[in-house]
Each structure stands twice: as C-alpha cells, then as structure tokens.
C-alpha cells in the first residue's frame, strides 16, 4: 500500500505544485488587500445597496470588513467550488483513469491486492489535498502579521478543516461514481454537477426558506466556511469525514468485485434497460 501511496503522490506532484502556487498567490494577494478593503469609506453602505436577494444568496456580506467575514467571502465561499474541481477530477480518475488507459491491467497483475491499491491511492489523494490546503493556509497565516487580520494561526486553520472535509466528500463521491458509471468523464460530470447543484441550492435556500428542509440532506449544508474562524463545529466536521469514509468504503467494496476492463473488451456501456417495445437481438420483425 505504501508503494502505491508514494506512487500516487509522485504522479500528483505537478497538480500539487500548480494548485499550491495558484492558491498561495491568491492568499498573499487577498491578505494584502484586507486593510484597503476594510478601510474603504462607505464600503458597508455600498454592500447594503446590493439587491437583498444577492446579499442573501452569498450569506452575511456585511461582515466583509471583519477577518472572519473576509475569509468567508473571499475564500471559503468560492474555494469549495474551485478546489472542488480538483477533488472531483482526481477522485473520478484515481483508479478508473488508469483503467481506461489500460495501465491498471498490468499494475494489478503484480502482487498488490486490490485493497492495498485502492487505499494506497485514496490516501495519496487525501494527502495531496491536505498539502494543497496547507500551502494555501500558510499563504494567509505568514503575511497576516503585516495586515490588520489579527487572527491566530489556529483561527486561520479552522475554516480550512471543513473545506478539507468537503473536498474529501466530493472527491470520494467522484471515486464511487467512477466505480459505478461507465467512464471517468461521466463520473466527473455527475459528481461535479452535484457539487455545483448543492452550492446553488444552499444559496437559494437563503432566499427561499421552503428549501431549508431539503438542504439538510446535502453535504454543503454542513460546510461551515468562514464561520469556523470563531468556533469550529466538530460535529459537522466529523459528519462530513464520516460521509466521505462511507463513500470510500462503498467504492472499495465495488472495486473488489468488479472486472478490470481493457479497451474493446466490453463493459463500457451502462447495463441496457429492458424496454417492452425493444426487439431482442437476433429476432426479426414479423412482416
């Protein structure tokens, strides 16, 4: 399992470097802008003049001049989607990507159990996600002393933990879908679509209270965002981690029992649905 974990990290180093640098530059830039934005005269009045629906969709935008509100609006609200693209993409192709390329066939012919391969790669994904978020967190913590963002390193850390858990949920969901759907692309589209739909639903629920009961069954309802700066909801965090663990166990269970496909060998289509009006293969329509 360790060999596969190391191999996964080695293969993901380009993504870690790319995402890490991008998020670090973004963090440095946003920290340096904090004082300017907080000191703009009449900024709160400007925000208050926005349409109420828009303000409700994005949450408490009036808190933007506080460090917690600033992180929430300029990081936590968007990054669940932006880094979510990374998580969904990696999760969907973690095993099935190699299967579609025909690489997995040879790997699994070596003395590595499917269990070791699965968990080695999944842990590689978890570690890569953690490294990206760690770099991103450092880019907020390190320059914060020179800005008015008077938060401790642990206060900065707290909103990154729910984000980490949320990325695990959707990344592992993509992995599970890749075990059930015929291709990486479909798994990525399905899980990415659910992520975006959940994001929109949460925003709409702030406008339409009738949707509140529905969002309780969605993962992003339990994503704290910038609110975690002041107090982390450990129950929600544990819940998100537990959900991703369940998804991972289901994906592992499925991976244990399925054929490893190679191109042209079948199994790429969804199981055909039986339709009463569909002719059976090999039968001819009566004249």
């Amino acid at each position, binding site marked *: 399992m360790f060999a596969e974990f190391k191999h996964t990290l080695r293969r993901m180093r380009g993504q870690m470097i790319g995402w890490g640098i991008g998020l670090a530059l973004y963090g440095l830039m946003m920290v340096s802008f904090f004082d300017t934005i907080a000191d703009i005269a009449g900024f709160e009045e400007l925000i208050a003049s926005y349409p109420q629906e828009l303000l409700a969709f994005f949450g408490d935008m009036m808190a933007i001049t506080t460090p917690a509100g600033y992180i929430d609006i300029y990081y936590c609200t968007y990054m669940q989607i932006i880094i979510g693209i990374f998580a969904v993409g990696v999760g969907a192709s973690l095993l099935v990507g190699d299967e579609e390329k025909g690489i997995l066939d040879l790997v699994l012919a*070596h003395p590595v159990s499917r269990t070791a391969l699965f968990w080695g790669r999944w842990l590689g994904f978890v570690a890569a996600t953690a490294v990206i978020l760690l770099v991103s967190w450092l880019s907020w913590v390190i320059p914060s002393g020179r800005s008015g963002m008077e938060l401790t390193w642990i206060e900065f850390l707290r909103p990154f933990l729910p984000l980490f858990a949320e990325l695990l949920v959707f990344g592992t969901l993509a992995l599970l879908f890749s075990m059930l759907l015929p291709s990486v692309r479909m798994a990525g589209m399905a899980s990415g679509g659910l992520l975006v739909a959940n994001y929109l639903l949460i925003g709409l629920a702030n406008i339409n209270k009738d949707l509140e009961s529905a969002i309780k069954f969605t993962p992003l309802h339990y994503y704290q965002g910038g609110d975690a700066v002041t107090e982390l909801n450990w129950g929600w965090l544990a819940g998100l981690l537990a959900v991703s663990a369940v998804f991972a166990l289901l994906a592992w269970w499925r991976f244990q029992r399925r054929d490893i496909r190679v191109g042209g060998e079948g199994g790429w289509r969804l199981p055909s649905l039986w339709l009463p009006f569909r002719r059976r293969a090999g039968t001819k329509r009566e004249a």
Partner: protein
Amino acid sequence: MSDIVIDVQDLTKSYGRVRAVRDIDLKVRRGEIFGYLGPNGAGKTTTMRCLLDLIRPDGGTVRVLGLDPQADPVAVQARAGYLPGELRLDPNMTVEGALRYFNALRGNKVDWGFVRQLAERLDLDLKPIIKNLSHGNKQKVGVVQALMHRPELLLLDEPTLGLDPLMQREVLRLLAEAQAEGATVFFASHILSEVQAAAERVAIIREGVIVEVAETASLINRAMRRATIRFKQAVDIGPLANVPGVTVLSQDDGTSVLLQVEGEMDGLIKALAAFPVSDFETERPSLEEIFLAYYEAGDEEGN
C-alpha cells in the same frame, strides 16, 4: 508439488451478450512452453486475465500454481510474470522509473543487475521517458518487467508484438532460458511461426472454444502448405497428383503447377526426383487456412 501449473476446467466468461470463452478445459504442465493460438478476439486474452484474477469467470474452476486466483490473487501474482497483449505504461515515467515502480510492487526483491542484463540483451535504454519510446521499445519494457523477478510462471500475451525479427528471436531465446531454469511459459499468439519456434504444446482457440490441444509438431504436420513447382519443360503431372496428401490447385501448360500438400513433404519431394524441376517454392498458409484444414479434417473424421 503438482505437475500441473495451470488447470482450467469448464471456464466460461461473457461480456454482456458476448460469450468470450465457453467451457474451456486446459492443463499446462510444469516446465513446458505452451502456446495458446487463435485469431484476434478468439478468447486468448480473456483466458489469461482470468488466470490472474483481473476478471472473474462466470463459471468453471481455475487453479494456477496450485492456487485459486480468486481466493488468493496476490500469491499467484507474486509467482507469475505477465505481459498484456495491449501493453500500456504510464507515459510520463522513465523506463527505469516504471521498472522500479513494478519492483516496488514486488517488495523491492528484484535483482537490479538482472534487470540491466535483460535491458542490455534487448537493446533497451533505461533513461528515456515512456511516451517517447517506439511501440517496439515499449514492448521490450513489458518483456523486462515480466521476466525481471524470475517468475515460476510466465503469462505472455503476444510477447513479440511490434518487435523486429532480431528482437523476436532474442525474446524467444529468453523464454527458452527461463524454461531451462524451471519456469513454465504460457503464451498467447496468433503468429504460427512463433508458436512453432517456441512451444512444445499448443492449444487452438476459436470463437471462445478450444478446438485442439496438441503437440506443436503434430499441428504443423497437419497444416497444409502450398507448393509452386516450375519445370524446365512441359511434363505430365499425373504422378504428382497421385501422391498421398497432394491436391492440384492449378497448372499452366505443363510447365508449372500449384499444389496443396497436407502432412509431410517427403512423398512429394521423392516423386519430384523424376521431374526436370527448375524452381520449387513452398508457402505456409495463414492461420485461418490451418483452422479450416483442421475443421475439414474434423468433419471427415466425424463422418
């Protein structure tokens, strides 16, 4: 220790409505080179992948090295070397990186000196990135990774695919050396000459069914050949047509004749001693023609 290394009984595997293999029975003895012969899509790869638990059979039993691959796949894989028919490697790794990764999956037990020796014999540079390699060089990487841990059992799907004739010969030599060290070699191929050169026994699979398991020599002798004979002057070819196993396919004004010969050539060559021969060419038929010859022979026996 059992003398049977691969023991397959009633193996059946379907992909949806397509029955890839049906009720296959196969026994491969310890220390032999066994050829698995059939056209593309016949079920060779499916059989081989069932032996390594890459796919699960719908029916039948499989035992490899005395083990059930479904119950203990890692134990089977640790003692086997596999070369897939459609070899795909991580394109961004170097050759050495890929081989070291496979070594890590085997618990870093491989003698790296032996890897270098194999690479040298196959004229394979370990430094390039896989995506920059030609098809033939990628195949060499596949051959090296299959052999590098000196496995007890080699499962090779089209091992010489894409290699030039010199390298093909070198690979067959490596297989013979592995056999001499005690390994059993089970290799699938659709190239008759390759099977003829390497295998002691051969199974023929067609449309998912094994139609013959035979000594290679017996299969070759059963195969038809075509012989084109040109004479210095017009002759009466009647005596040639009467040679057992010889059929006249066509003739041109008595100066040349195209014959089909079943079995050994000895009778024909002796008969030709009485003719003024200027040229004599023989040609092996395609695998498909051998299959047809086999089926026709089978039908005749049945009748």
